[in-house]
């Protein structure tokens, strides 16, 4: 497995994390890593704890056990706004853009940070509008008036405003038309080329295998399988076992 080839600490390390929702034991000791500039896929059926893993990394839920580190530094227990400033971007399931804010204001929530110069602002906005021209068109429109696909783009663009080291993407293709799905694939590719790490939670196996370098497969709150994406095929027995109907 290539991640241990160098002794460099991975960008994000999740170590034996247990998380509860109330009394419900959702994560039973999840461990995974994401290296710098890597795209890592996290596959699994509904309800196995993929989203919860992302939320634990982002500090939206506190684990009862285990640790999460960012570039070697312990981040377990830090509040989400600190993590965002440390370079962790989060694009949740169902997008959750600010519906009553305009597209521009949505972007501003990530852009109005300490230490962002006027130049950086311009560069980031230009980049994002180049990626997503439709957002440039609709920049004065309220987020709630955008279509599903446009909202997904806005959610990703918004995270990009944080100049993140890693983006946690939760089911970005859910509910999107096939044309949009392939666009998402291109976007992930483009982000990868820029050197941004991505932890991609998805149910769309072909997209994930194509976009990722490594994949983890989860079942019932645990990681059951881990390998390079190239070693897997859509029709593999492993895929059928953990993701088949």
């Amino acid at each position, binding site marked *: 497995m290539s991640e241990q080839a160098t002794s460099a600490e991975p960008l994000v390390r999740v170590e034996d994390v247990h998380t509860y929702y109330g009394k419900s034991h959702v994560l039973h000791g999840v461990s995974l890593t994401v290296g710098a500039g890597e795209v890592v896929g996290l596959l699994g059926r509904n309800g196995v704890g993929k989203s919860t893993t992302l939320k634990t990394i*982002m500090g*939206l839920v506190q684990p009862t056990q285990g640790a999460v580190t960012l570039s070697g530094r312990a981040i377990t227990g830090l*509040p*989400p*706004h600190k993590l*965002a*400033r440390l370079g962790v971007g*989060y694009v*949740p399931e169902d997008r*959750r*853009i*600010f*519906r*009553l*804010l305009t597209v521009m*204001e949505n972007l*501003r*929530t*990530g852009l*109005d*940070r300490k230490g962002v110069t006027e130049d950086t602002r311009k560069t980031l906005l230009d980049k994002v509008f180049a990626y997503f021209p439709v957002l440039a068109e609709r920049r004065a429109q309220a987020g709630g008036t955008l279509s599903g696909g446009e909202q997904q783009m806005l959610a990703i663009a*918004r995270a990009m405003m*944080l100049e993140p080291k890693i983006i946690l993407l939760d089911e970005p293709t859910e509910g999107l038309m096939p044309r949009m799905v392939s666009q998402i694939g291109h976007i992930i590719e483009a982000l990868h080329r820029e050197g941004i790490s991505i932890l991609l939670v998805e149910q769309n196996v072909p997209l994930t295998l194509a976009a990722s370098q490594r994949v983890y497969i989860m079942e019932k709150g645990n990681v059951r399988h881990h390998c390079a994406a190239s070693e897997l095929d859509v029709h593999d027995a492993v895929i059928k076992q953990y993701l088949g109907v």
Partner: protein
Amino acid sequence: MGAIVEFLHSIPIDLLIIQTVNGIVTGMILALVASGLTLIFGIMDVVNFAHGELFMLGAYMGVIAFAMTGSFWLALALAALIIGIFGAALQILTLRPLIGRDPLNTILATFGISLVLQNYALWQFGPVARKMSEPISAEFTLFYLQYPWYRIVIALISGAIIGALYLFLKFNKFGVWIRATTQDRVMAQAMGIPVPWVYTGVFALGAAMAAASGVLFAPFGGVDSSMGLQWVLEAFIVVVVGGMGNLGGSVVAAIFISLLEAYAAVWLNPSQAVIASFIVLILTLLFRPTGLFAVPK
């Protein structure tokens, strides 16, 4: 028919016009108080019972600052600043620990704070009301009255503050943070917005607005430790009638209710005129509980 004509003749038109002016003036101050209250509720989901006491302490700060500096405008700014900081400290100490708990806790906590502040003021400043002289002594003639200009000025200032708040929320970076936090607290955090500090800031802002209203109202009547109670009740009525969390709605409701009370005062005595606001409240609750003047934010 004749009785109606007689009644119409007996209406003192000039008195009504004077009361209209009075109503609008008090309405603007009430709007300022209610704006702070509805802001705090709309953004933090906190029912701030201590709002009336912040109003009252602001008035006292204003009186003291005026005595020291001789300038009404400086006193206004100082009082708002001091009480704003005080409000921030209060929120950090007593309300932050309660975030995420049952709303009953915050209602009780702010009620407790109001008790402490009210009794502190009574103890510290004594039961005799303080007076604050008017910032502008010029008057103009309104029918048979010499109407003081400062009242008009104060109404304009209240309006200006509310307007500034609106612009702040719409265009300023912190305004965007506040609006994002109100819509989706979790995602606001995920975008790096320090939500606990946004809450502190909003509370401080609301407190500063209450304090400013207190100073603006001070020249009208005396400043004493119980003035907060009367205003906070009216402010709550305004907030419910205007729609909780609805800034525009509370401004319109404040003026509407103040006008009604001012007119009622022509025929009833002042302590009974307040019944007008009660009637408006009951009607609102019966027919449009989400707020009579639901103005989109």
